[in-house]
C-alpha cells in the first residue's frame, strides 16, 4: 500500500506538472485537478465528522467541557443542515449564520487581538530588551502613528516622509527576502514530495 501510494503521488504530481509545460497535457491536468478538488472536499467532510466524533466522545466520557462540546455539536449540525437544505447563499442562512454568528464573532475575536497585541508588544520589551525588539516596536509605533487619521490631518514628518520610506523601502527589502525564502521553501517541499523523499500521506 505504501509503495502504491508513493507511485500514485509521484505520477499524479508529474502529470499535473506536465500540464503547465506541455499544452497537450493540459486536459489531463484539468481532469486530475478536478478529481483532487473532489477528494479534498470529501476529506473536509470526513474532518467535520471527526470533529463531531471527538466532541461526542467528550460528552460520553463526561468531560468537564462537555457543555461546550454540546454547544459545538448542536451549532455544527444545525448550520450544516440549514446550509445544506437551503443552500449557503440563501438569505435566511446569510442573515442568521453569516451576519448573525460567523462575521460578528470573527470581528470580535479580531477586536480582542487589539489588546492582546498591545500587551504582547509591552511584554516583548520587558522580556527581551535588545536591539531587534527595540527596532521592531519602534517601526510598528512609527508606522502606526504615521497612518493614524488625526483631526488636523497627517503628522508632518511621520505620515508624508518616514512612513512611506520605511514601509516601501526598508520593510519591503525584509519582506521580499522573507517571501523569496518562503517561495524557495515551498519549491523544495514540492520537489521532495514529487521525488518521493517526503511522504506526508502516510507512506514514510
Amino acid at each position: 500500500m505504501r509503495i502504491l501510494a508513493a507511485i500514485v503521488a509521484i505520477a499524479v504530481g508529474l502529470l499535473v506538472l506536465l500540464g503547465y509545460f506541455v499544452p497537450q497535457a493540459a486536459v489531463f491536468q484539468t481532469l486530475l485537478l478536478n478529481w483532487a478538488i473532489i477528494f479534498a472536499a470529501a476529506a473536509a467532510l470526513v474532518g467535520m465528522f471527526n470533529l463531531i466524533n471527538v466532541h461526542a466522545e467528550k460528552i460520553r466520557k463526561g468531560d468537564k467541557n462537555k457543555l461546550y462540546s454540546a454547544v459545538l455539536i448542536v451549532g455544527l449540525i444545525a448550520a450544516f443542515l440549514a446550509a445544506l437544505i437551503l443552500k449557503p447563499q440563501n438569505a435566511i442562512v446569510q442573515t442568521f449564520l453569516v451576519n448573525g454568528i460567523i462575521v460578528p464573532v470573527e470581528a470580535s475575536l479580531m477586536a480582542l487581538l487589539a489588546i492582546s497585541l498591545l500587551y504582547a508588544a509591552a511584554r516583548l520589551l520587558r522580556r527581551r530588551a535588545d536591539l531587534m525588539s527595540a527596532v521592531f516596536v519602534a517601526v510598528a509605533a512609527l508606522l502606526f502613528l504615521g497612518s493614524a487619521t488625526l483631526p488636523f490631518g497627517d503628522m508632518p514628518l511621520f505620515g508624508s516622509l518616514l512612513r512611506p520610506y520605511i514601509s516601501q523601502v526598508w520593510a519591503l527589502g525584509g519582506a521580499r527576502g522573507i517571501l523569496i525564502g518562503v517561495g524557495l521553501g515551498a519549491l523544495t517541499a514540492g520537489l521532495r514530495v514529487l521525488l518521493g523523499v517526503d511522504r506526508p500521506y502516510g507512506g514514510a
Partner: protein
Amino acid sequence: MNLFDLIAGAISFLLTLMILSYFVGDNPLFKIAAYLFVGVASGYVAAVVFWQALYPKLFAPTAQVLFSGAYNEGLLLVVPWLGVALILMKGSPRLAGASQIPLAFLVGAGAAVILVGALTGTILPQVNAAINVFDFRNNDAGAFEMLTSGAVALVGAVASLTYFHFNARRKADGSTQRFAPIEWLAWIGRVFIAIALGAVFAGVYAAALTAFIERVSSLVIFVKTLLGMS
C-alpha cells in the same frame, strides 16, 4: 428593520458581548461563544464544500449520466467515486490504510501546484520586482533616489535570505559558527526582518483596532435602534 434582521442583530449583539467579555478574563460566556462559532463555521463550510465542489463535480454529473443512460460517459466518474469511498474509510481504524491512496493523489497534485505557484507566483515576480526598481525607463523618481531606494531594498532582500542560511563549520570545541561575512550579512538581515515584521505588526494592529471600533459601534447602533433613537 424586519424581524429576521432584528433576531440576527440580537444574536450578533449577544455574541459580541460574550466574546468581548474575555477582556475581564477567560470565562464560560466567552467559551460558549467560541465553541458555537467553531461549530457553526465548520457546519457552514462543510455545506459550502458540498454545494461548491461535491455537487457540481460529482453528484450532478453522476445524476446526469444515470438519468440519460449514457453510461460510457460516466467512466471518468468511477475514479472520483472510488477515491471518495476510500477517503470515507478513514473513519474506520481497520480500513484507514486504504485512504492513503486518495490522500497520496491529493498530496501529489497539491505538490505540483505549489511548486509551480511558488515559482511563478512568488519567486520570479519578487526577483523581477527587485530588478525593475533599477529600470530607469519605468521610474519617475530621480536617479539618485531610485538607486538608493533600490539598493536598500536589494540589500534587505539578500541579507534577509542570508539570515536563513544555516550552513556552519564545526569548531574544535564542538560548537558551530557560520562563515564571518555570512554572519555579518545575517545580522543586517535580522534588522531588515525586524523592520518588516514591525510593519506587519502595525498593519495587523490597525486592522484589529478597526475591528474593535466597528464592534463597539455595532453594539451602540443596535441599542439605539432598539430604543428607536436612529
